[in-house]
């Protein structure tokens, strides 16, 4: 209870404080402090749930179970490391003249607000509030994406706003339909949108309405997940926004959107007997994996390249969650964790690499290893990890998903294997010359922040070799909940 308030209160207070003081020198430190406080609060909440089990609080408006508390912890953690990373990064950007003090204030304030909206989306028990929080997250990040005010970033932000706005409107329609189905059982009051209440009566919900609602919800939240064919905004927003924003978009926002889809899937699975939600999610997931893998080869911009890689990985997770069952869910949750950690680490290094080279174009970034071994190795290891090389954690989760798919959906495995192979070839072929080869880069005015990168990669490595028992138990519980 008090933990929930703390988890939500710190970022909100941070956003307010930074809105007033964000232009000062110590703003990045305040940003880090607020994120750290959020992280501590979320760890306390995690411990609480771990000991006491699921938790309903504040007139049933908030609900914490192993599934979302795990995401809360992940979100707070990556939010914190990104805040740490963004301090030197944004200073370098300021020196390069890409942002001024006023924009930095906006940046810091919106960063905290974005954290708040994501945590609210995760913690709320009310599907309506979930929608509101997702929309608010869109609004906060629109301002972050257009931070540089260049034509390209404005275009990216506009596209992002319109596409996600349209998408999220579909999700609202799905939510209304859900309410429509539930109010007959639960009454028209506030109870009919509470996930726990819906979960209790999901067997009696009207199947027709729920299947139509799920289509809308999947399309709506799926736009934010970046599922093909609704993915157009994602590469632009990632490429044109500041790097810390790309990192949290890929590492966190996509997860939260997928979380919303999965929560809805649980309800639909209870109401619709045949695997309606399962088939839809598997189809969309597989399509995203395949299309994104083939588009990877055509990318010329480093951040776009990894944005497409995010689409591919979100596709894998959607596929796995769609497949369902304890093993696939376990693997999907694991994949969510390792993808968040790895992808944000990659964006950190790519951001610094782009700062060094003065461009994001892959062909103009050469010889990172010679000038800055830390950035070079970070990028190589991160790329290897995201491509699913053992011993990194991504290998473990992808391996689990593939073996489950061979058992449960054998028709899908060839597609997955081909897509993973294509992705490997195209990404590696592009990253290899960036790291090796003749250097074209220049010195940075500040030391790059490489600690978060190696912390993330270390964790991913650890998850590949050994999953701590409490974490495994936690995943198992969450996987059971999803069903």
């Amino acid at each position, binding site marked *: 209870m008090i933990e929930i308030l703390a988890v939500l209160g710190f970022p909100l207070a941070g956003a307010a404080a930074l809105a007033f003081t964000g232009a000062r020198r110590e703003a990045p430190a305040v940003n880090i402090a607020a994120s750290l406080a959020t992280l501590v609060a979320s760890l306390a909440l995690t411990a609480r749930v771990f000991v006491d089990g699921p938790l309903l609080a504040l007139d049933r408006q908030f609900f914490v179970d192993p599934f979302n508390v795990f995401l809360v912890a992940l979100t707070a953690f990556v939010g914190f490391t990104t805040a740490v990373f963004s301090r030197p990064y944004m200073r370098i950007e300021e020196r390069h003249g890409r942002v001024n003090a006023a924009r930095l204030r906006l940046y810091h304030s919106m960063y905290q607000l974005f954290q708040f909206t994501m945590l609210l989306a995760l913690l709320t028990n009310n599907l309506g509030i979930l929608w509101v929080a997702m929309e*608010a997250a869109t609004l906060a990040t629109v301002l972050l994406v257009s931070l540089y005010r260049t034509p390209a970033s404005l275009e990216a932000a506009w596209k992002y706003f*319109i596409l996600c706005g349209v998408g999220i409107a579909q999700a609202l329609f799905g939510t209304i339909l859900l309410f429509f189905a539930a109010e*007959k059982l639960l009454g028209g*009051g506030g109870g009919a949108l509470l996930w726990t209440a819906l979960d209790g009566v999901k067997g009696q919900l009207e199947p027709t309405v729920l299947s139509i609602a799920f289509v809308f919800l999947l399309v709506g939240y799926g736009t934010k997940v970046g599922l093909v064919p609704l993915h157009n905004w994602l590469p632009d927003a990632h490429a044109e926004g500041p790097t810390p924003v790309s990192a949290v978009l890929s590492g966190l926002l996509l997860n939260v959107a997928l979380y919303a889809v999965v929560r809805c899937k649980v309800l639909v699975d209870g109401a619709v007997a045949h695997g309606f939600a399962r088939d839809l999610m598997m189809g969309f997931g597989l399509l995203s994996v395949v299309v994104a893998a083939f*588009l990877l080869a055509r990318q010329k911009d480093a951040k776009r390249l990894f944005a497409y890689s995010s689409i591919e990985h979100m596709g894998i997770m959607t596929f796995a969650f769609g497949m369902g069952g304890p093993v696939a869910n376990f693997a999907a949750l694991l994949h969510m964790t390792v993808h968040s950690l790895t992808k944000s680490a990659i964006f950190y290094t790519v951001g610094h690499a782009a700062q060094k080279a003065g461009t994001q174009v892959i062909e103009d970034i050469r010889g990172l290893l010679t000038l800055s071994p830390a950035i070079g190795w970070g990028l190589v290891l991160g790329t290897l990890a995201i491509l699913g090389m053992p011993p990194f954690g991504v290998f473990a989760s992808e391996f689990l998903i593939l073996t489950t798919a061979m058992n449960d959906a054998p028709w899908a495995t060839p597609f997955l294997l081909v897509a993973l192979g294509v992705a490997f070839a195209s990404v590696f072929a592009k990253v290899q010359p960036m790291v090796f080869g003749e250097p074209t880069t220049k010195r940075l005015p500040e030391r790059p922040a490489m600690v978060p990168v190696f912390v993330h990669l270390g964790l991913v490595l650890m998850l590949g070799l050994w999953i701590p028992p409490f974490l495994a138990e936690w995943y198992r519980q969450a996987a059971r909940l999803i069903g």
Partner: protein
Amino acid sequence: MSALPLHAQVINLLAAILLLLAFAMLTQRRVLSLIDLFAAQGLALAVSTGIVAAYTGQAHLWWSAGITLALKVVALPWILHRLIRRLDVKWDVERLVNVPTTMLIGIVLVVFSFNLAVPISQLSGTITRATLGIAMASVMLSFLMMITRRKAIPQVIGFLSMENGLFFAATSATYGMPMVVELGIALDVLVGVLILGVFFFQIREQFDSLDLQHLEKLQEGE
């Protein structure tokens, strides 16, 4: 012929008007008239919410009717008018390609959403359940409007009218979502429009025009 109670008849009439306005917006070329149509749609929405409130006696629906009136009939059109004055695009006329085709596609969309809504409506307990199809059709039409428009402000109005359709679905077909949710949605819409207002100026600063054709540089493989 079935005899619906009067309030249901009026709501049905308002639903039909809403649909008609959605079509009118689809084919309206002048920015200023577009805003007026949007305000009219908001008014129809507010009135229908008020009728549902009076009939069901749910206090929060009065609030939501009031919010709709304040936000969609007064505040948003006012903001948009101001924006247009400040941006000096008052007499913008958009060249719409192929209005008849757009209309035919619109009709197809209406048929589609009516078909989709029929099984749902049959299950509903509310008297005005049939309006769900119209709400869905309005959403689809606004969607179509956003696709066919090339300028920033009409696209935003399309976005807002999509929200109108959704609100109509929430109030008339289900007798209202919980109050918190409605407040949240209204807040989001307002903030969204304010952000977009800032955005318009940025776009104009950069491109010297609000024509979105300038915003088509980011393509695959670039």
